[in-house]
């Protein structure tokens, strides 16, 4: 790819992986809730698997359940990824810390309900 060429448009199938990973996080919480019932504790962690589009990604993001709830509430379209897994050219960063970034994808703007 030449430097003068426009950036490659995002492939929808790549982004689909991020959607699936976000879905896994949401579904996992549902299962945990089913198992633990009222014993779920907000202040304890509920790690997320990185919601990026990299085909091989084994990263987890350590956030408390309360923080995760806050992120989902504030950024219902967002994907929570480790900072280096955000594709800056294609994704819009909504929020960032040292541990994670919340990004938005052009092709997937549906709001998700989590927690």
């Amino acid at each position, binding site marked *: 790819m030449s430097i003068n060429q426009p950036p490659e448009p995002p492939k929808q199938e790549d982004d689909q992986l991020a959607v699936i990973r976000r879905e896994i996080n949401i579904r996992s*919480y549902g299962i945990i809730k089913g198992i633990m019932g009222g014993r779920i504790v907000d202040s304890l962690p509920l790690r997320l698997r990185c919601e990026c589009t990299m085909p091989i990604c084994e990263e987890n993001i350590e956030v408390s359940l309360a923080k995760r709830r806050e992120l989902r509430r504030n950024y219902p379209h967002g994907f929570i990824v480790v900072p280096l897994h955000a594709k800056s050219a294609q994704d819009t960063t909504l929020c960032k810390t040292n541990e994670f970034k919340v990004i938005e994808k052009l092709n997937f703007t549906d709001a998700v309900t989590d927690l």
Partner: protein
Amino acid sequence: MVRSPSIKQYMYKIPATIQPTKITALDEILKGGIPYGSLVLTTGPAGGGKTTLAQQWLFEGARHLEEVGLYISFTEEIDKAIRNIEQFEFFDKSYIKTGKICFIDGRTLLMGMPFKQKPSFDLIEMDQLLTVIMNLVDQTQAKRVVIDSITALIYKLEGVDAVRSFIFRLGYALSRPGATVMLIGEADLNAGYQSPVEEYISDAIIYVDSGSGRNQQMRKLEVKKMRGVNYRSGPAYFEITNKGITLYPKIPTYGLTALTDFKTRRKTGIKKLDEMMGGGIPQGHILLVAGNTGSGRTTLGMHFLEAGILQGEAGLFVSIDESMTQIIKTAKEHDWDFDRHLKDKMLINVPSDQIDIYPDKLLYQIVRAVEDNNIKRVVIDSISSMESSEFARDYVRDFLLQLTAFFKSRGINCLATYLTTEMFGAPNKQLMGGTVSSELQLSSIVDGIILTRYVERDQEVRKLVSILKMRGSNHDKGIYEFSIGKAGLILGNQFKDDL
């Protein structure tokens, strides 16, 4: 926890990074426990005790260390898994009710995924499973996680890479919060199949196996790998009873200081025999009392114990040949009240199965009894029965080596009886006849040998006793006639062969 006896001898500080298993004697083998955050593969053939070991590990952790445990089953219904362990003393239903231990049906962790209809997991299903397990550990703050079995999961994964990736990610995700994960695997080294991928990736491998004795199952456990721990290698036998798993680890023979004292002598209670030995048995000496059947070996042993008890020294009788009831009756014939001694705890009995002898179990029981009761005198009746037991034959020498090292380190005296194979020892003036310690070369392990035997003279069978060996101590080399009467062994005149 019932602490293994020999651990007192090898007391060490357990670092904070080590998680004691709190399973009797397993921590001794592991020199403290398992490093927190380890991925432990517990593997072996069906019926070896893998699941029991894992479940006991969870309950002991909850009981002794307040550690939350997770048991995730992919092989059986949770109700059934719980029913199966209700029989064990380590089981405590309240731990399940209070969430200290969570039993989880692994299949529910994939709810919403179409995996049930598929023969294998794809990456997404694997991802979900890992995420749920990780979240469960996060929220329960579990420090002990059991996945039973990893083999059942691996069957659902396609290819070695998927297996490697799954196990690696599982270990990584769970070790971060400090949870130790025990994966139950299926392997049978005897049948030639194993789990190479899991073994390479795991930080630790515990192999449990079961073999058959003649009338009972013989189980053994071996730590094959434990990163960061200088564990004790070699197999340890164990039993599964209503207490759960009880291990019988070997006693290390290195580093023990012998408390042998030639100035301190323990009397046998047979005056002339004590004189033959220079005033009794030197403290810490282990003697083999070898002889033909009925030649007075057991009586000599009982004599030795009775003499000690009269002086306030507690004794231990390890009965392999005869039941203790029989021994008590025989003792009564000599006016020795062994029944009373047992009640007073001046005499302790360690019985043994006569067909399938677990040498390591016997060793463990002896060491426990010695430590718990301040035993100074021990009689093992007989070593030759262990030799004749199919299972124990190969271990008699090891058994005696360990026991000797242990007894010497405590300054204990032991008489081990031994049945010689030759009935008569004095044909044609060959008085040294009689196989004393067989091909096992037990004679080099023990400090002394007392030989009892028969001889035919003047149309009658006479009994003879002699001392073949007394390490580091002069002794009478004469051969003496003796008889057994109400007062026990009575030594007579020196035997003169007038043939």
